[in-house]
């Protein structure tokens, strides 16, 4: 409810004063609200995922923007509509007041004539105060519904005034015009309820539009967030691929200047990593290749000397035996190093074929360093086929037998069994090598498969031969075949280790 003084006197057509101020509903108290927003930002937002943060920011942004625009639009509309009505209402009231003044001008005893005159002109809602007596046009619009302040100002102070007031719940603009004839004031009621209706429907539309905008903003936020986060997902995926060994993985080049920085530095990092890994792998490979030439000379020369061993003095024979043994070890080490460097470079290409596991193991043992090692094959395992690289798996068996020879008391038993019980479908086959050495303590059972496993493991297990690469190569080879290797105690409780190779296998039809 607003009141305003009318600027002009009772001149007809005098423009009314400024618009009725209806914008006071928007609170000016932004300060505390912003402070709490900052608190939310700093405390709460950090706990949300980036995606949620972007979504919330867009949602709130749209909400505030639409609320602001709605408020502005509402206030603008209201001012316009109310102003318009205000002006026409005031004009009409002045015109009607002029009529009443003319009627009362002949020093009338009462205002009845004026009321009649106005009624006849079609003016419906007005009240005239003439010498302290009220004359109303209808029972509803009487002096009772005119606010006392307005009466005070229009009658007592003789100031033309207007005010919005509610009559039976409906808003009315009440214009009070003091008449220049002695002691008379004219009040006219201008309906404002249709203006109110218009404004409410505008407000409803604006609120609805605001809700839509907020939802739209939130959806835009979801979209923007997923777009903003997508490069991160790509980068994460690429990083995972690189960690998984695919070193040539790169991020797609992009035109976005912000993302280009990320993509470029990521790709630079990946390239540097790839170069370094490849250089390391190539170095190991080059070293092993370079070592092959002197080894060739050694191998050939040693063979010449071996053929003449009997001609040598006893001490020279002993020295030759040492030379022979260590050249063989050296050779094995170079081969293992080369194979490991192939693994590291990801350059292992398995030559896969179907192998009857029992036949394969017997052959592999026959060419190993202990060809007389007994091979026990269970009845069912005789019909088991594995898919593998014949020469690499033979290397695995040979390395396990070497291990038994060097660290396992020098004799071993190889068994080929199925881990599954009778009647169960067969998915794996176990190739085990049991020795009579000191066994492997529980805490070292993973360590023995490490490269050049040293320290306590090697110190106790080895005499002159280091643990070397043999078992780590076993591990790599078996894993490249989709199997695993582990070591445990002998099943019969005697001291000694039992190495188990588990390989995926199939049973062939009988």
């Amino acid at each position: 409810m607003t009141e305003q003084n009318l600027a002009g006197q009772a001149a007809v057509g005098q423009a009314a004063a400024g618009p009725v101020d209806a914008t006071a509903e928007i609170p000016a108290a932004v300060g505390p609200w912003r402070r709490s927003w900052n608190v939310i930002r700093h405390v709460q937002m950090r706990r949300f995922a980036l995606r949620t943060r972007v979504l919330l920011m867009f949602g709130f942004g749209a909400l505030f923007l639409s609320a602001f625009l709605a408020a502005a639009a509402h206030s603008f509309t209201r001012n316009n509509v109310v102003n318009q009505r205000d002006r026409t209402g005031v004009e009409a009231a002045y015109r009607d007041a002029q009529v009443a003044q003319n009627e009362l001008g002949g020093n009338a005893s009462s205002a009845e004539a004026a009321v009649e005159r106005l009624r006849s002109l079609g003016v419906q809602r007005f009240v005239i105060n003439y010498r302290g007596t009220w004359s109303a046009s209808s029972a509803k619009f009487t002096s009772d519904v005119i606010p006392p302040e307005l009466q005070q100002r229009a009658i007592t102070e003789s100031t033309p005034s207007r005010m919005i007031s509610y009559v039976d719940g409906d808003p009315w603009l009440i214009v009070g015009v003091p008449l220049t004839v002695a002691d008379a004031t004219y009040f006219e009621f201008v309906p404002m309820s249709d203006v109110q209706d218009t404004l409410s429907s505008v407000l409803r539309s604006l609120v609805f539009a605001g809700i839509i905008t907020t939802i739209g903003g939130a959806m835009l936020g979801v979209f923007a967030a997923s777009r903003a986060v997508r490069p991160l997902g790509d980068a994460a995926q690429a990083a995972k691929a690189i960690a998984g060994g695919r070193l040539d993985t790169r991020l797609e080049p992009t035109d976005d200047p912000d993302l280009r920085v990320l993509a470029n530095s990521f790709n630079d990092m990946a390239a540097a990593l790839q170069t370094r890994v490849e250089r390391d792998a190539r170095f190991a490979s080059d070293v092993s290749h370079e070592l092959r030439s002197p080894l060739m000379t050694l191998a050939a020369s040693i063979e010449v000397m071996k053929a003449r061993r009997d001609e040598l003095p006893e001490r020279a024979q002993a020295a030759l035996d040492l030379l022979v043994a260590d050249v063989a070890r050296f050779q094995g080490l170079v081969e293992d190093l080369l194979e490991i460097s192939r693994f590291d470079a990801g350059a292992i290409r398995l030559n896969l074929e179907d192998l009857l596991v029992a036949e394969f193991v017997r052959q592999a043992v026959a060419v190993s360093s202990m060809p007389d090692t007994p091979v026990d094959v269970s009845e069912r395992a005789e019909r088991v086929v594995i898919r593998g690289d014949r020469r690499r798996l033979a290397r695995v068996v040979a390395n396990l037998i070497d291990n038994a020879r060097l660290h396992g008391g020098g004799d071993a038993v190889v068994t080929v069994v199925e881990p599954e019980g009778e009647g169960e479908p067969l998915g794996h086959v176990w190739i085990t090598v049991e020795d009579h050495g000191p066994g492997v303590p529980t805490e070292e059972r993973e360590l023995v498969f490490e490269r050049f496993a040293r320290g306590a493991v090697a110190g106790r297990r080895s005499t002159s031969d280091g643990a070397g690469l043999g078992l780590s190569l076993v591990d790599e080879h078996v894993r490249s075949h989709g199997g695993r290797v582990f070591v445990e105690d002998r099943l019969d409780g005697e001291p000694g280790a039992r190495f188990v190779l588990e390989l995926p296998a199939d049973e062939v039809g009988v």
Partner: protein
Amino acid sequence: MGTRILSVEDDERIRTAVKLALEDEGWTVDEAGSGEEAIDLFHRSAPDVVLIDIMLPGIDGFELCRTLRRHSDVPIVMVTARNDTHDVVAGLEAGADDYLTKPFAPKELSARIRALLRRIRPISPGHAKLVFGDLEIVPDEGKVTRGGSELHLTKTEFRLLCELAQNPGRVFSRESLLDKVWGYDYFGDGRLVDVHVRRLRTKVEADPANPRHVVTVRGLGYRLQS
């Protein structure tokens, strides 16, 4: 004089050591330090087997192999520093009969040479001539003709063809061919067979891409048919 081996190796210490070891095995060894020297010596001494290191200065081992192959079917053993598929297959494609990876035991080399020099198994009497469509094999004379014109096979290709011809229609696994032709045990390299079959096809087949005689039986091996 016994069997002559021409050893081509640029590293003098390796060459000397290998020569010593091979002479212990009873072979006569001629040495060449480069491909050019080897070609010259090859024509003068007519070796029974040539041993070629792939990494040679000047003419490399592959090129030397191809050059020798142009006018000789002498058995060639390649020596590679790496047993990567690329080097091995390239060497075999260039015409080598077998390969060894450094460092090898000279005894192993001797075994390989002996296998390469082995005579073909005698074919059952009454089968002096084997006919497979347009292909005719006369094992005793070491002669193969297709459509009447004589084909030039290396000794190893000929032995491979004869092995397959011993039992026409039967499938020979790679392992059995490795054993019979190259004298390898269970762990021989199947690529030897595959590359030799490929080379054999370019000679005996009218269309090597669609072989009619030397047929691959997937997962099992090879078979000879008419």
